């Protein structure tokens, strides 16, 4: 340990603001970098699960009657959802 006290480590001979803000922001950015994909993956998996449970069948229609889109009313897969 180079520093004698907690205060000294905070102050770093007057350079503390710079060093600590640099480390702080960097650690924050790195944490976000790791957290974002982790949460995204869980969200995607959850969404897929609920989406398929709701439709109770694979989202890809296997029959062509679903493919005539345009004028027919398709409640289940509205683009907003």
């Amino acid at each position, binding site marked *: *340990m*180079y*520093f004698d006290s907690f205060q000294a*480590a905070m102050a*770093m*001979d*007057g*350079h*503390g603001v*710079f*060093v600590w*803000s*640099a*480390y702080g*922001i*960097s*650690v924050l*950015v*790195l944490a*976000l*970098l*790791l957290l*974002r*994909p*982790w949460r*995204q*993956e869980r969200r*995607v*998996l959850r969404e*897929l*699960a609920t989406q*398929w*449970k709701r439709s109770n069948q*694979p*989202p*890809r229609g296997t029959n062509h009657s679903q493919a005539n889109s345009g004028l027919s009313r398709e409640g289940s897969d509205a683009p907003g959802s």
Partner: protein
Amino acid sequence: MWSFFHKLGSPPWLYRISGSILRWLLPLTLLGLALGMTWGLFFTAPDFRQGNSYRIIYIHVPAAVVALAGYYVMATAGAVSLIWKMKMADVALRAAAPVGAALTFVALLTGAIWGKPTWGTWWVWDARITSMLILLFLYLGVIALYEAYDNKEAAGKACAVLSLVGTVNIPIIYKSVDWWYSLHQPASIKFTGPSSIDPSMLYPLLLLIISFYALFTCCLLMNMRVGILQREARTKWVRKLVGL
């Protein structure tokens, strides 16, 4: 070799293998980062000229080094995507861009913060600094281009083209800015050369550089897993994975 290459193109394999890699790499990375930062912050002697502010080097240099290397990873993925039409290369490219951008941002930010106590100013138009700024633009350009396309398959190809073109540009920018700066006014501030670093200061730096590389890999893999899931959402193996 070719079979490995072939496997790399297979989403389920990649998804599975990335999971098992992350299981041991992620804890190691976090450990390395924590260890390196603590070491750098508390257990090294201050630089005789810059005092304690030099401790920023432990973030700044790893971030800068990995940010630059990240661009080449991205461009390589782009080349693979265009030449071998490998879909997972698109996913890798897209996954690398935000990580590279964030690390570039960290390098710029820590550099700027470091500049204030040592140079007395946040910003100078130095060759390395300017080219780092441009690297940030390049990363942001790739991200923005990808987001702007509706057809994500086309988006991947467009980003591949852009990142390849950018590869050509990086050395040109570096050289030109270097020359421009020395032409207009002599460099009054020089980076301290790596040779002047004391070994006791160097070890934590090396540890952190390795950790940053590992961090980049972790983030890349994690982002790729999201990309694979989004792309393959309708396939059987994902359906099975979700438990249906």
